[in-house]
């Protein structure tokens, strides 16, 4: 419990550092919004008055504090280009990104764990070798190319889904999830291949350790050595990887959204980057960063539960 508390504290500190960095960086490049807001009517006095009104004359840290406090209350500022509150835009799109990433995560686990265990159990066999080779190739496929291939094969040849036929979750949740079926697969495939490789090698190297010999000496069968002794140990590095993969997939969803024409956080982020719509860019990046940090924290806590050596330190 103490360990979990420590991890939550670390997460908060990191989150503070990240948001501060993002704020300062954008504060520096975004220049003076007053000039663009007033346009031709700008006089030094009016500009100064507006600056005072917007709090731009306060020290940077105070401005950061105000921004962060607003963020916590759900006020993320106003989009320059859409002229609407950023929070509304994000609340609308966040479920899309989260659903897609979670589906991809489930895909990854469903594929990686059985296949990885099978390959490790039958190390050196024909199936294991085929898995290894196929794996090596799949790992090399960029997710967006996997997306294009899936669009072509399943969308255009087998017509299992309509490319570009995205349905919003507000309209029809079932169809929404159905449409995300293939995009999430595209995100998951390369990660699943990496997870298979890691799980396989982790199990194989665990099987060589002394405690496995001890387990055999007590009369365990191969099966019970694998499931009752080795699996938990072998999962320790895999858990770290799964966590990293999950945060990678959150970011990777930005690209996959483009491939499948899904209007999620990625779409907003990209349009805002090209429009220099900084409040939106900042908000999206901070949101994704928070998601990633929460995922990392959860992984750390699970890690502590699985490995008794960690929590004691």
């Amino acid at each position, binding site marked *: 419990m103490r360990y979990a508390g420590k991890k939550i504290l670390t997460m908060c500190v990191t989150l503070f550092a990240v948001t501060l960095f993002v704020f300062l960086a954008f504060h520096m490049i975004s220049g003076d919004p007053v000039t663009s807001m007033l346009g031709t009517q700008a006089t030094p006095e009016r500009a100064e008055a507006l600056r005072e009104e917007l709090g731009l004359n306060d020290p940077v840290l105070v401005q950061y504090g105000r921004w962060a406090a607003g963020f916590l209350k759900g006020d993320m500022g106003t989009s320059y280009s859409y002229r609407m509150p950023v929070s509304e835009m994000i609340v609308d799109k966040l479920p899309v990104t989260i659903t897609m990433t979670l589906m991809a995560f489930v895909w990854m686990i469903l594929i990686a764990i059985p296949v990885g265990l099978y390959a490790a159990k039958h190390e050196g066999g024909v199936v294991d070798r085929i898995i290894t080779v196929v794996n090596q190739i799949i790992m090399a496929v960029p997710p967006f190319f996997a997306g294009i291939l899936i669009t072509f094969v399943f969308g255009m040849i087998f017509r299992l889904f309509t490319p570009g036929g995205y349905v919003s979750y507000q309209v029809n949740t079932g169809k929404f999830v159905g449409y995300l079926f293939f995009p999430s697969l595209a995100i998951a495939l390369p990660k699943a291949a990496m997870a298979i490789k890691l799980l396989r090698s982790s199990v194989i190297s665990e099987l060589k350790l*002394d405690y496995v010999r001890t387990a055999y000496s*007590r*009369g*365990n069968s191969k099966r019970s050595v694998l499931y009752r002794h080795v699996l938990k*140990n072998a999962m320790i590095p895999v858990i770290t990887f799964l966590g990293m993969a999950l945060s990678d997939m959150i970011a990777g969803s930005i690209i996959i959204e483009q491939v499948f024409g899904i209007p999620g956080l990625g779409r907003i982020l990209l349009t805002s980057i090209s429009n220099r719509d900084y409040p939106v860019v900042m908000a999206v990046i901070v949101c994704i960063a928070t998601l990633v940090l929460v995922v990392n924290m959860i992984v750390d806590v699970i890690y502590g539960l699985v490995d008794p*050596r960690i929590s*004691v330190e």
Partner: protein
Amino acid sequence: MIRVTDLNIEFFDHERPETVVYDFDLTLHEGEIVGLVGESGSGKSMSALAIAGLLSRKDMKKRGEILFEGVNLLDCDRKTLRKFQGNEIGMIFQEPMTSLNPVKKIGWQVEEALRLHTDLSKEERKKRAIEMLQKVELHEPERVYEQYPHELSGGMRQRVMIAAAMICDPKILIADEPTTALDVTIQEQIVALLKRINQEKKTAILFISHDLSLVHQLCERVLVMKGGYVVENGSADEIFYHPKEEYTKKLIAAIPKVVRKTEKDS
């Protein structure tokens, strides 16, 4: 009780086959402690693992016979072998640090053989495990039961290993360098513990070690191995004080003697 005849083990690890144990013969009687001595690479551990049924690699070829209760452990099926492992034949290893599963509680590991070989209920198993932990002279066995290996010292871990190996009252205990990784005073305690178990339960012990003087303290009979062969075989005193083979003499000469220098000089 257990009779090993003509055991040969060959490896195919490297390009050419490599024999690591040649014509190994051994008979172990009830309640006997036999020592197996040799330097690294002599084949002593390999022979011990073979007797415990723990050599099952594909790149290995085994010949000969290991007869235990009328069954040849070398070519019986795995299921029969498993019935003996942990139940009739227990084993402890050199590194108590790595020989225990790092993510499982001590209690779980100690009672594992019971879970595999008996129909005892959970509570009975726990009772037996705690009794066993007490027998190997661990303080606060209830506490140890709930602990993880990394929370114990090396000596304590080796006691846990012994408790786990002895929980089904096996007829044979194979101890592969069980004290090498420990301090001398702890080593002495572990050796005393093994002696006591041997006397109380009439467990036969095969004690593998590189330390001839330690084997001399503990064992009645000793086999000396070199390069895969048993070079000498006899009673411990005979081998220690009147070695016949050149190699045994060399081994004994290599142990520094603690004799008063005044006597040495005169």
